[in-house]
């Protein structure tokens, strides 16, 4: 396999330069530099507090960086919002409404009216659009999948997923991986933050290792071939 750093398959679609994010005295990101190419599947790995979620939130335009630049499709994250799908660790859904009702609402925010689009999204994640149960009564796995359906509702070019497999049983997780693989094959760019990287071995194009607010390594395999200069061995399972 070729090294993706030297031979990119697609053009860079996301460029991050010198990104710093501080919450008071706590530093979440300390100078992140990276480019992500179109149509690739990235997995971001690292310990708790390594800055993965903060990076994803900054990319999605939810949090303004203290310093540094983010360019998505040549625009700022806010301006590129139509091309971004974001799935967070919390479900980002209203517990008291059914999945379909939720999606019909979020549909309006993207100015794409129509039940069919929502039904497609629900079916894409392997759920039943007829399900009238409120989301609050879903199982964790179903809720995660519905959350994914919300993120892909407007058919974005780029997907940011934060811990999509946490608390999901292995079977559902495998299904979701298959789904993501299909989307990658449909030329979507996908960034996944996860602790269960083993699930994505063979699916992901690249593993991005983060530690203490910086990207320390990028590898093609889950096993890190070499360590970054001055880096301690990662405590990743």
């Amino acid at each position: 396999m070729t090294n993706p750093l030297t031979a990119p398959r697609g053009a860079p679609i996301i460029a991050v330069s010198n990104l710093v994010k501080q919450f008071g005295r706590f530093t979440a990101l300390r100078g992140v530099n990276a480019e992500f190419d179109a149509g690739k599947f990235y997995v971001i790995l690292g310990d708790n507090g390594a800055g993965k979620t903060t990076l994803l939130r900054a990319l999605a335009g939810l949090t303004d960086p203290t310093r540094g630049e983010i360019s998505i499709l040549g625009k700022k994250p806010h301006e590129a919002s139509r091309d971004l799908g974001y799935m967070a660790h919390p479900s980002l859904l209203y517990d008291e409404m059914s999945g379909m009702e939720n999606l019909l609402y979020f549909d309006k925010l993207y100015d794409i009216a129509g039940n069919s689009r929502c039904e497609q999204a629900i079916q894409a994640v392997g759920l039943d659009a007829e399900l009238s149960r409120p989301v609050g009564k879903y199982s964790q796995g179903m809720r995660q999948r519905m959350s994914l359906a919300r993120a892909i509702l407007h058919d974005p070019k780029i997907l940011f997923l934060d811990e999509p497999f946490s608390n999901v049983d292995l079977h559902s997780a495998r299904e979701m991986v298959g789904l993501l693989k299909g989307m990658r094959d449909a030329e979507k760019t996908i960034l996944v933050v996860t602790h269960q990287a083993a699930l994505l071995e063979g699916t992901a194009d690249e593993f991005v290792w983060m530690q203490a607010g910086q990207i320390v390594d990028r590898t093609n395999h889950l096993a890190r071939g070499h360590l970054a200069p001055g880096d301690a061995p990662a405590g990743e399972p």
Partner: protein
Amino acid sequence: MKRAFPILAVLTALLLVYAFYQALWVAPTDALQGEVYRIIYYHVPSAWTAFLLFFINFIASVQYLANARPSTARAARWIVIAIGIIGFVAPFIPQVKQQLPTGMYPSSVATTFLIITGLYFVIGKYFVDQDLDVLAVTTAEVGVVFCSIVLVTGPIWARPVWGIWWAPGDIRLTSTLVLWLIYVSYLVLRRFSDSAQTQKLAAVLAVFGALDVPLVYFSIWFFRTQHPQPVIGGGGSMDPRMLHVLLISWMAFLCFAFLVCWSRYRLEKLSREVEEAEALESLLEPAGLAGPSSAVKTPLSRGSK
């Protein structure tokens, strides 16, 4: 710049002593109120100073918000110019002239608008980006101090003259109280904010507070005022010697306010630099990580003396 502060401090002290002497011994005794009227030499200048500071806070906040985008900054500039032109020309139009309250001259109204416009551009020239926010904190805090003095000396004056501490229908004291409340809530928001964008939130609140001022004034105005006629531009009943002393006193308090603002401004700048340095320190903390350490210069070199 460093040496200017003590020189100015000495001058201000002299001016304050002179104003004190003028207020207590030179100014004539009021025929109706007796000696106690001399409170106005502290009360009124403090009020004017507080209003000026709050106004600067408003301008700084508007500019801070407008500068977020070049387009809004440009729009704000043109709006201010338009207000300046209209305010300069309008008082001389006969129909508008008639509407002005007695004792208010068109030329003074026009000058006021000119000063307001000028202030916007002067502040915009000398304060950029975060400095605008520092200016806003400074003026709000010092303004609240002066406003507190107005609110304390007001009732002390009212008691012997009116026989009551506080007249709820009195327009100026009550609207000053509301103004004080608004700016205290502004300072509370700054203290309690959890956001990385406290400055923006505070600026928004400052704009809301400033929009509130005319509404406060009109709402109390209808209650009918118990206050004596305005001291300046209201009937001209004031002895010119009294006015003279009042203006000297205002000059003295303005200089004093300037000094206090200067110290507060420097304190805020320094503490932000310290915060930044602490943040940088935490940025560099885990040794061995290849970071931006070489490129980082501590910003404390200036402030540590």
